């Protein structure tokens, strides 16, 4: 709840009946960002209820949508507050908002501002016009890094349970079970698993443009295997060929899956594209994980 701003009308500076109206999501970071960039400009901010979610995600879900914009204009009596009939919305709300429908229902003309709030002053100075670059979404390294924690936490429970299972299974041997063996060799499995996970949800996003292939799952396979090669040299993949191959399967599949999940954080993947990618990638990832696990368990008995 602490990320939410109460919906309603807010003033920046000393706005009057001719001041511009900006519409914001009620995600606190979006709101603060807008407010900061409006400093020195007397204006109104109409905060709508997007359940505390940022503009683009809320627009995708429809909560930053035509209905909510129209509803807020009405219940906060915007038409009585200002004489002018324009409202400025963030461009990234456009997937949820139909400008002509808002106009039809409220009389207010929707003007889409730039993608980033930091360009608002330039947009206003240019007479409510955004340059082509202000209209485009990029995905630079800094933005990708910021989203990495979201993906790391995706597998939180699994990444506690699965390594534990591997640790326990590490004690299996042809003679039965050995706790000493589990303790002495199990850490290697944990290193391998976390490295595969790291390759998929940290290395792949960070190095995204420089890894070959367009499919995220293929990119993840590349980074997963690169890390596996490093661990092969470091000696944590085991001693027999089957055991090493098993780790390549497990780490490759795991990294590939986690990398594929980063499509959700990216700013340029389409639903049709991700569906196409998953249709082949998901079965391959599952098969790799199971074959790898089976191979690894078998090596415990030979």
């Amino acid at each position, binding site marked *: 709840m602490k*990320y939410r701003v109460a919906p309603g009308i807010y003033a920046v500076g000393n706005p009057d009946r001719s001041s511009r109206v900006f519409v914001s999501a009620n995600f606190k970071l979006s709101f603060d960002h807008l407010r900061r960039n409006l400093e020195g400009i007397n204006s109104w901010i109409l905060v709508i209820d997007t359940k505390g979610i940022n503009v683009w*995600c809320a627009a995708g879900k429809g909560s930053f949508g035509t209905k909510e914009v129209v509803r807020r204009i009405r219940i906060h009596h915007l038409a009585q507050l200002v004489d002018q009939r324009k409202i400025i919305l963030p461009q990234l709300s456009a*997937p949820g908002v139909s400008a002509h429908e808002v106009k039809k229902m409220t009389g207010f003309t929707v003007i889409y501002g730039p993608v980033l709030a930091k360009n608002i002053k330039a947009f206003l100075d240019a007479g409510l016009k955004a340059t082509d670059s202000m209209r485009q979404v990029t995905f630079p390294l800094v933005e990708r890094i910021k*989203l990495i924690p979201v993906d790391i936490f995706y597998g939180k429970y699994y990444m506690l349970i699965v390594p534990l299972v591997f640790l326990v299974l590490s004690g299996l041997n042809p003679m039965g079970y050995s706790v000493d063996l589990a303790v002495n060799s199990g850490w290697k499995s944990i290193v391998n698993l976390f490295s595969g996970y790291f390759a998929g949800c940290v290395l792949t996003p960070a190095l995204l443009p420089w890894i070959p292939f367009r499919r995220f799952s293929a990119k993840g396979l590349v980074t997963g295997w690169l890390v596996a090669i490093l661990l092969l040299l470091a000696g944590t993949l085991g001693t027999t060929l089957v055991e090493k191959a098993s780790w390549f399967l497990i780490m490759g599949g795991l990294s590939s899956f986690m990398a594929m999940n980063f499509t*959700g*954080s990216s700013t340029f993947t389409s639903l049709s594209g991700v569906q196409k990618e998953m249709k082949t990638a998901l079965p391959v990832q599952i098969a790799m994980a199971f074959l790898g696990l089976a191979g690894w368990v078998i090596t415990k008995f030979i």
Partner: protein
Amino acid sequence: MNRFVYLPDVVTLELDVTKCTGCRMCLVVCPHAVFGIENNKAVILQKDFCMECGACAKNCQEGAITVKSGVGCAAGIINGLLRGTEPTCDCSEGSSCC
């Protein structure tokens, strides 16, 4: 750094030029510069840049644009499969998820 482009030839975006009035709204809302203007009508210049966000279709008064929009998100698609619904991201409030 150059633009990211995802898989080629999969996007469902379609433009019916006969309905287009050249209002340029699609150029305004598109975050990936997919559209251009030729002879006062919109054209799709770079179909593979499209991420199917649906902003253009939603803001085309003439209904000249169609696209099957949705979340381009693997976790969302898995969510949808598990629940038997359309792909949906399951981000709770807060952070910059999806």
